[in-house]
């Protein structure tokens, strides 16, 4: 069953068609990787689905309901959560506060102003549980602005996870992290989301990570979907190898042929 479907979804910035009538779908329970070179439209697609940007045209259907006109707030309530490419945290609050805020918000308690937040034991127990699962328990009382970059990337995911989403977008969960740290972060993240039955869309540049951790790969190029399939299918797809793998050191992207293949 498809959890999310987009139909002819489009967004332009001036003359640049960032997302060009894209039909994209995510099946329930999948770990999907969205890949493509810089400017391919991956982040724009996520921004459209999560409600950060309004689309120019097209439809977004989540759990068989049209959410195209819904605010980001309503989409979060419906179960769409996301992390950010550039870490977005509450830097002057502790790590536990960061996670607890997502829980308070999920439970609709953030408008409570006559009770001390620290008294809500259930919320803090859950927050500590989440931190524990992400291996961040040690940092619970430390300000989010004071932990290492790798830990911040994990906390960013933990905050989104604490919203108990059905669909989670992770925008480059390992960007800016040393190669050595990437696999441990992905191990933790994928184990948690698989255990929670959460459907995940990961945007990632590191091909080793992509092929190792995802069940399905969607390749974007210049605003359109170039290929869609299992890791093996993608690995053997000529259009993909020339455009994407070809952009790696040693080769220029063969833009013309990729365009033809994509349309």
């Amino acid at each position: 069953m498809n959890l999310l479907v987009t139909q002819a979804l489009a967004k332009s910035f001036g003359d640049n068609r960032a997302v060009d009538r894209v039909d994209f779908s995510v099946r329930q329970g999948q770990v999907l990787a969205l890949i493509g070179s810089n400017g391919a439209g991956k982040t724009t697609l996520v921004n459209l689905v999560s409600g950060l940007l309004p689309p120019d045209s097209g439809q977004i259907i989540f759990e068989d309901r049209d959410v195209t006109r819904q605010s980001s707030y309503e989409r979060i309530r419906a179960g769409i959560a996301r992390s950010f490419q550039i870490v977005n945290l509450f830097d002057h609050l502790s790590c536990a506060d960061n996670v607890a805020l997502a829980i308070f918000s999920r439970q609709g308690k953030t408008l409570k102003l006559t009770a001390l937040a620290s008294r809500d034991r259930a919320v803090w127990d859950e927050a500590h549980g989440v931190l524990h699962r992400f291996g961040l328990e040690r940092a619970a009382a430390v300000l989010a602005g004071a932990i290492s970059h790798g830990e911040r990337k994990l906390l960013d995911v933990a905050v989104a996870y604490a919203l108990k989403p059905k669909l989670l977008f992770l925008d480059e969960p390992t960007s800016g992290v040393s190669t050595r740290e990437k696999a441990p972060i992905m191990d933790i993240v994928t184990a948690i989301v698989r255990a929670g039955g959460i459907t995940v869309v990961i945007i990632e540049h590191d091909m080793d990570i992509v092929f190792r951790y995802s069940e399905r790969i969607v390749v974007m190029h210049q605003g359109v979907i170039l290929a869609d399939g299992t890791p093996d299918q993608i690995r053997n797809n000529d259009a993909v190898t020339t455009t994407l793998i070809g952009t790696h050191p040693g080769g220029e992207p063969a833009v013309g042929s990729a365009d033809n293949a994509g349309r």
Partner: protein
Amino acid sequence: MNTTESIAKARSRWRILAWIVPVAVLLLAAPFVIDPFQTLTLTYGLVAAIGALGFNLLLGYTGLLSFGHSAFFGTGAYTVAFLVKYLKIASMELFLAGSVLVSALISILFGFVCVRYTRIFFGILTLALSQVLWSLAFKFFWVTGGTDGLRVPTPTLLGAAPTDDKMEFLAHRYYYYVLAIFAICVALMWVIVHSPFGKALQAIRDNETRAEFIGIRIRRYRLIAFVISGIFTGVAGALWAPLNGLASPDILVWTFSGEIVFMTVLGGFRTFVGPIIGAIAFTYLKTYAVGFTVYWQLLLGTVLVVLVLALPTGIMGAVERVAAKLKKAR
């Protein structure tokens, strides 16, 4: 929750008590120890502290710098003056109730316009709106008394008529009245900033986009913070009116908003008690500067520039730094 954390929590609770008790004793004993003039200055300081506390809910906790808080202070003071002039009311409790109501209305109105914006745009809008209020008080002199302002006599406190000696009344009974309201306001604000709502405000301050993406409707929260802030500052204005004996347009002028900003920054807007300390320090500084020289503004300006350069995080920021150093040395 693990044990080290509960121990840390219990310890911090004791530390807070270790501060509150001596400060409360000092404040309660003040009228018997210092002369009435000093007590009066302290009363002004406590009143300003309530206003600064309200102001800092926006600056320190929500990340919005208002340059228009004189509007709410003025609203509180003028509400009292109007209640006296037009309804012949003399009860301080009714003054407070009235000022809460009117400053809530004004801040809903102003907030509705202002919270759509942040940073400089927010600051300029609050400034502009407060100037509108000032010009109204200034121009509609048949209602507001114009530049002469409106007289505010000493009120009844909890139904008890004021004593004949005004100075004695203000420096004793009224001081305790203000102290009680101050204590209530501090406790209320403490709960608000430590509630889930207060945490949400800090989340908005730190990262608007992320706050939105954990499901916080930021405009609504900013508006609520704006209104609470306005009400606190309005209450300060209402308490100030009988103390000053006059509600005049100078408390609506933008320079007075600047004073509220200054008190808060002086005390340190990153801490809860910073604005309180700053307001009291500023009040003393100003009172002595005025008594010392006719060029008091020059003196005050110089002192403040030096203070900001030497203590960029305010008085409380400096205190915390010193405390941290001492702790390390031990």
